């Protein structure tokens, strides 16, 4: 009996291992362990055993049954694994075929620069102000210490709508409008579209500026350097050198041109920076007392600084755009690169 049980276990193991599919395995299972199976048939012979043999063989029957059960379970798991592996192999696709795509949208680089620059200034406590693109002479010039006949008006060739209305030549009139509305402290930037009567490879009759200013007690030229250095290094990188040098704007005094180290040649000198290693990036200065006078701020109590930058110029340096006209050509092959 014992021998026959061991034979059954051995032949059962072979049948199980030979089963190549779950269906065959189930047949094997019925054949071995089913109600009419081989083990049941064997157990029928147990009646002929002695009382001593019976528990021993009974235990052996259970062991053989458990062994076969677990063999079948293991085999079943293996077969299932194999089945999945086969199916996966059969479903193999060409992953190098391109995916299903939708048209990608993109923000114009001018918008992107404006948003990125605004975000940096927002983190430095600056709010955003706006003003009209068609502006009164008073806000665009007069209040900014540029009376009629002032030579500084030549610096900005102007489009006129009427004697006293112009397409604003800079975003500085927003400074005036804001200061007339709010008392210090003010920290504001004003991004916007501006116009100058100039058109060639390096000038567009319409372009964009971001103006900013800060007025409070005890604001110094050192603070101007601090804020603008923070801006340039955050936007272009901490390793970029910044320098301030004397310049002239009618609405600031002292005035400073802010240069950053050339991002193309790292300051070694190249065509873009005219071999100087430096690039003009911002105009700035302490707000002129005349401007304070025209908005009713007391320059004995308050001081402040203002700055302005050209959005296209910054975009050209940031993204390596070599031709200004690309910004207004709106060729999708250009625009899509900003997606």
């Amino acid at each position, binding site marked *: 009996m014992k021998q026959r049980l061991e034979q059954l276990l051995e032949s059962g193991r072979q049948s199980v291992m030979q089963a190549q599919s779950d269906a065959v395995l189930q047949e094997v299972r019925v054949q071995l362990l089913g109600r009419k199976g081989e083990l049941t048939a064997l157990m029928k012979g147990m009646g002929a055993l002695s009382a001593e043999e019976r528990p021993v063989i009974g235990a052996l029957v259970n062991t053989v049954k458990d062994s076969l059960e677990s063999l079948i379970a293991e085999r079943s798991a293996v077969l299932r694994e194999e089945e999945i592996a086969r199916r996966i192999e059969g479903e193999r696709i060409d992953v190098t075929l391109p995916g299903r795509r939708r048209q990608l949208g993109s923000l114009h680089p001018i918008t992107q620069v404006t948003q990125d620059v605004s975000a940096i200034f927002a983190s430095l406590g600056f709010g955003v102000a706006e003003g009209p693109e*068609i502006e009164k002479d008073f806000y665009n010039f007069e209040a900014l210490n540029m009376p009629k*006949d002032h030579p500084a008006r030549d610096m900005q060739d102007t489009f006129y709508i009427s004697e006293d209305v112009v397409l604003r030549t800079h975003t500085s009139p927003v400074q005036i409008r804001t200061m007339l509305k*709010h008392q210090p402290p*003010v920290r504001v930037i004003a991004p916007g579209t501006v116009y100058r009567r100039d058109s060639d490879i390096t000038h567009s009759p319409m372009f964009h500026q971001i103006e900013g200013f800060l007025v409070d007690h005890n604001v110094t030229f050192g603070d101007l350097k601090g804020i603008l250095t923070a801006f340039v290094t955050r936007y272009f990188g901490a390793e970029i050198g910044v320098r301030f*040098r004397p310049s002239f704007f009618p609405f600031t005094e002292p005035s400073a041109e802010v240069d950053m180290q050339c991002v193309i040649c790292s300051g070694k000198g190249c065509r873009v920076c005219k071999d100087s290693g430096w690039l003009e990036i911002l105009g700035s200065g302490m707000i*002129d007392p005349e401007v304070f006078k025209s908005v009713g701020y007391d320059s004995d109590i308050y001081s402040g600084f203002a700055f302005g930058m050209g959005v296209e110029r910054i975009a050209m340096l940031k993204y390596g755009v070599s031709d200004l006209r690309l910004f207004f050509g709106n060729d999708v092959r250009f625009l899509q690169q900003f997606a």
Partner: protein
Amino acid sequence: MVVTWNWLKEFVEFDLTPEELSHRLTMAGLEVDVMEKLGAGLDGVIVARLLDVTQHPDADRLTVCRVDTGAGEVQVVCGATNHRSGDLIALATVGTILPGDFKIKESKIRGQLSQGMLCSEKELGLADESAGIMILPTDLQVGQPVFKALGLTDVRFELGLTPNRADCLSVVGVAREVAAMVAGTLHVPHATLQETGANIQTETSVEILDADKCPRYAARLIRKVKIGPSPQWLVRRLEAVGLRSINNVVDVTNYVMMELGHPLHAFDFSLLRGGKIVVRCPGDSAFTTLDSQVRKLTTNDLAICDGEGPVALAGVMGGENSEIRPETTDVLLESAWFEPYAIRRTSKRLGIHTDSSHRFERGADINMVPVALDRAAALIALLADGVISKGMIDAYPRKIENRSLIISTKRTNAILGLALSTAEVSRLLSSIGLDVKHAADADQLVVGVPTFRPDLEREIDLIEEVARLNGYDLIPVTMPSGCSTGHPEPAGQGTVRRLRDLMVAEGFAEVVNYSFVHPDVSDRILLTADDERRIHTVVRNPLTEDQSVMRTLLLPSLLETAARNIAYRSNDLSLFELRPVFRPVHGTELPEETLHLAAVLCGRRAPLGWCQTEEPVDFYDLKGAVEQLLEVLHIEGASWSNATGEPYLHAGKSCTLMHRNRCLGVLGEVHPKVLANYDIAYPVFMFELNVASLIQEANAISGIQPISRFPDVYRDSAFLLDSSVSAATITETIAGVRSNLIESSVIFDVYSGKGIPEGKKSVAVRVRYRSTERTLTDEEISKVHDRLVRSMESRLKACLR
């Protein structure tokens, strides 16, 4: 303004390299745009002697020259004709790189060895034009570099001056800055004159009738001059600073202008009618300037007149009627000072910008009048053999005094963020020639400002000078103390940002077009004659007609952009623009600026690909984008009505978007006639929305609905309807069932054609049911759905299919 190294050295000693000087000038506010080393890299161009010149055996127009280089002999083939044996010439030896990146190599020219090149002045960058090669003076030493031998080694600095720095429009002015930089001394030239002629007072007179515009006018008379070419040193120096040599007298006036910054003018005295000068405004008259242009003068133009009429436009340009000619012998030399505004008005009105007007507009130095006059008279006497009359006429009816200002050290430090002592402030201001004295208050200084610095008018101007002279570099970098609570964002700025982001998410590329357009855009988009959008804000002085009126709609610019892209074969386009349009408002000075958001869509829905279908976009692609815009802005219950009245839209495929009686904009297919006007051959869909209205109607997110835990059940029903029944009425009818069990309904199929009777269509609707409180039973759902079907049948005469 251009200055050169050698010229500066005449007035100030400094021990700097050209690079250092360039950097220091830039950091002092005199930005060096270009630094050019004359003769740099041209040491290989040497003085050489032509030993003999023979005809090239195989070329008529070439000669073969034997040349002594001082270190040996070379053979050079040359195409010029002006050289003779024995001449000293400029030889570019093998290896030299001439201007224009032209490298000299040993070569064979028509079989003859050529070991170098005989150079012309043009090839050496010494002249714009030259005939033949350069023949050098005979006293030069053979073998020396030519530039060194001729004393031409120099450095040009082109300065980009800011308009406030009139004082630096001269070599002496720049030298004054250099002296301040290196704590050196400025030497201003003082002329010594031999006045051997008659007393000038007996020969001529000056009368100023308009002392407001001309407070000072000085003159000298030089007789018996010989007009001729200027010596080489003068020609070269003028060329170095960008001026062309004309003749010895005119060249001297230009030279002194560059040197001292004071414009002068030389008249042919024999052509001055009445032999005298009268400074006045001649009123309306015509006058021919030196450049042969007839100029119309008006009441306020100041002129230099003789006994009869104008002979020069004061401070701007001389007259043809009194100019120096080859036969001139007697010269009346003018040195005057004019009010900047007067010169500016005339020069601007007439569109004449000269070196002279440039200086007078920005402010010349009134005390330079006699100095410059003497300097020029001495030079003319020297270079043109003139005899100077005794004395000068110096009419000075309105004296201009030095300005006196007070500067506070405390205030200076407060503005600059520095901690300078009063003594340091005093030292800095003195270094540029200001007359600084201590005041009673130890914090203050009294500063006398010489007339060469007309830009220093207020304390703040002096504070800027202190910052500049001390160096911007030395101002410590600090951060402003205190903080601002910030200003509220202008209304709608967040909405504008969301709109842009959504358009990008919808796959549109943002474009930026010029705000000004051609006035014919109204015709191109077929606006009717009485359409108020034809009324533009007009630019008075446009650059071109294409940019002459401010746009009232964004669509034309977008169509133009689309057409341009299509011309480059970018056919699938989804573009948007979010920018203001401009509408003149009667009775107000400024037009109304309203933000619009417009988009155009055309071509295929998806880019070509193996797994994508090549379907063209249609109206509903665009409408979907607008619907999602409204969703993002939480604008609910907007309506779409077929009538737009817009002549530029396809009447059958367009609509007006309304919300609570406010028109938000229009969308639809662009009218084929408009597309033809833009040369676009296939359908384009567009929308243009008023962003201001969107901002007004937009809502913030509020009242978020809880999410049901219970399962949904949906029922699909297809209805047969009259073709004319709109989707909107179906949606309204379903909404009219008013059951809170209906979660949503979607029209998922619209069909007409085979199997559907003429004039009918089949519309399939999926209605989704769900409760927030329990799992719905079939019975509950059927009750509501049956009600819905009955409502469809009774209200829309629908038949359930």
